[in-house]
């Protein structure tokens, strides 16, 4: 079997087993229990919650992220193993949504970690979540869910943005350089 074929088979099978990190970053987590239970039952598609990032493949950013949570999210994302996927949940991850003028929530998630897929809405309905998972599976099969590759490729840029956000200052990058000079 050629390497490409092998990769294709691997993707075809792996997409049916998406384990997500048990991390409720925001209010979007409220619609996760219904998705897991009798009416929607996402375990049908092999999706299951996992306790720790080491075991998981999918990181759901369920809603707005405060800077304090962003630090944890980055930590969790980096502890996950490739291939890993991120789904941004709700309007808040796209442009801040409801909290567009809040001083403590990030406005665009893709500046800090690569996002494979967004779900619009506040809050997204369970059907939308299921749809997103199915879409993600499709993307995985086609090899389009390459957020983790992007993170490796543009690691410096992501890190720079994260550093800025963590310090609530734009000049953080310069600060570090000055510190190094000293």
């Amino acid at each position, binding site marked *: 079997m050629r390497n490409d074929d092998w990769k294709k088979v691997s993707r075809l099978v792996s997409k049916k087993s998406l384990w997500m990190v048990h991390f409720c970053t925001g209010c979007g987590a409220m619609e996760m229990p219904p998705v897991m239970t009798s009416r929607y039952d996402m375990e049908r598609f092999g999706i299951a919650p996992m306790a*720790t*990032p*080491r075991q998981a493949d999918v990181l759901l950013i369920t809603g707005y992220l405060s800077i304090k949570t962003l630090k*944890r*999210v980055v*930590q*969790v994302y980096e*502890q996950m193993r490739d291939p890993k996927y991120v789904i941004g949940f709700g309007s808040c991850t796209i442009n801040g949504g409801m909290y567009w003028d809040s001083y403590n929530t990030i406005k665009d998630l893709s500046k800090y970690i690569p996002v494979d897929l967004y779900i619009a809405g506040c809050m997204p309905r369970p059907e939308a979540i299921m749809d997103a998972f199915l879409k993600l599976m499709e993307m995985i099969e086609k090899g389009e869910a390459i957020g983790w590759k992007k993170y490796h490729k543009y690691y410096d840029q992501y890190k720079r943005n994260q550093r800025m956000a963590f310090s609530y200052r734009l000049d953080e990058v310069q600060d570090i350089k000055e510190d190094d000079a000293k």
Partner: protein
Amino acid sequence: MILEAFGVMLLAVIVVLALDRYPRIAAAVAIIASLLPLFALTSWAGIMGISLPSFLAPLEFESSLVYNLGPGTLNLAITPLGWFFLLLLATSFPLALLFASSFVRNRAGGFYAGMLLTMLGSFGVLLARDALTFFLFWEIMSWSILAMVLRGGDRRAIVSYLSFGSLSAMLLLFGFMMLYFKTGTFLFGDMHLDTSLTTLVALSMIVAGLAVKGALMPLHVWAPHVYSRSEEPFVAFLSGGLSKLGYFGMLLFMYGIAGLSLLSSWGTFRDVSYFGYALAVIGAFTAFAGTVLAVMQDDLRKLLAYSSVGQLGYIAIGIGIGTPLALTGALFQALNHTFFKAVLFLAAGAVYYRTGKWKISELGGLGYRMPFTFLAALFAIFALAAIPITSGFAAKWLLYEAAIEKKFLFVTPIMLIAGVGAFLYAYKILYGVFLGEPRYDVKEAPISQLVAMWLLVLPLVIFLIFPGWVADLAAPILSEYGMQPIPHTPYVITTNLAAYNTLAVIFALMGALLVSLILYKWKPQEVVPHEDNYLAGEPPELYEYISMHAASNYYEPFEDVFGPVFRRGAERAWEIILAAAEFLGNGARRLYTGLTQDYSIYILLFFLILVGWWLLW
């Protein structure tokens, strides 16, 4: 050559005492002297039916000796039983000294002198063919152990050892006297015991006196204190080697002198004499209680001490059951215990040597820093837990089979559950000391310590592959007692219940390991630092230090259940003993000045009195 050997060893004692300020030279002298028993061992290999190449047996030792010492005589001779136990002692002893050569720095001369004296004493005990010689050497050994305990300087250890040591001596002496009045001789060969009550009492007293050294409950109290407050090489030899002398004595008196038919004449229960049954029950209780107590210890040495108590209980069970299967199992267990416990105590010593800590809760993460120590300890722990990839399993298996064969309904589950309990404390050592959060940036142990440990691991590997060899060694001993050796080949031991084939286990394991190795090497991996750990998402860089070692009070739920029963019991036992000791030795209390010189003078005086009494009598 035997007398010369004693002479040389005594000479070496004086020499090392003189070389107190040159520990390395003293160690070299002691190690050279310690090889004498080893040469004696190889020279006597013939009586076990083993023929060794001559370069392994450079010295020729006579197989028996009667030596007139003024009014008394020393009756010495080698027997298969003596040879077997000499094998345990003579091989572990030089290695303990080798370990000590880098470990002991403080007053080294005294250490080596004491060690050589204990070996001299036990050499004599193993060869003794009459009660008085036995007692003389036994006391030499006991008192030199006391000298070593005194070096530790712990009051509890000294008091408990002194009280139990004198109890043991007293019991032995009374037992011997009673046997003498009954039979009119001290010679083992001439003792023809009858079924009278006096014999029973005498025999019980002797076995009880020996059980003190074998740390059988409830006579074990001294052991944890002594084991945890003395230098490690000595403790390794004490727990590994010297404690076996008690069981040597039991085998000698119960099966060599009294014999199975005599024991059975006082009543039997399902073909097992009441005498043996009682010993087996005590042994099972010891195995269980020792294990439970070991689980609850935080001090590494105390844990190992209680573990010793527990493991020695298995030997007592085997001796108690007294079938060929059980005796082979007991001998096998004695052999295993000698080596794995020595390795564990030495590994503990090596850990202490590098970190200066004894408490399990204060250690941690040494597995990556001291990998070879860790691997030796790991192997020894596997042997201790009787994992079937070491020789430890075969011994326990023999004992289980023997117990089932004799339908020991209540003893067998206790033995088995004590075996499971061993996993608990075994993992406590592994996790608390070698795994978990790396807290110390230390080097690997010195080469001499590593060599000592790994040479002691060797027998565990050899007898894993060839458990039949132990059965071979046991065969002459069993035939002396008029028993049939158990059916075996080098790899397979067969009982009338089942068979155990080590080759099948090893090959299956290798195959399975190979498959899983391929599976495991399939994908690449990267090694991450300890800090990159699951902290529920908390970034570690936000914290200066995150304490992640859970070893303190590790088995708390277990202790909540068993603690109230056992700890209180142990405390009360200790109180009673202390009270008794203080009551008995109220006058002697003033003698405890705490100065080592004084104690040495007492010991010397005692020796003079002992020797004088023996010469004049």
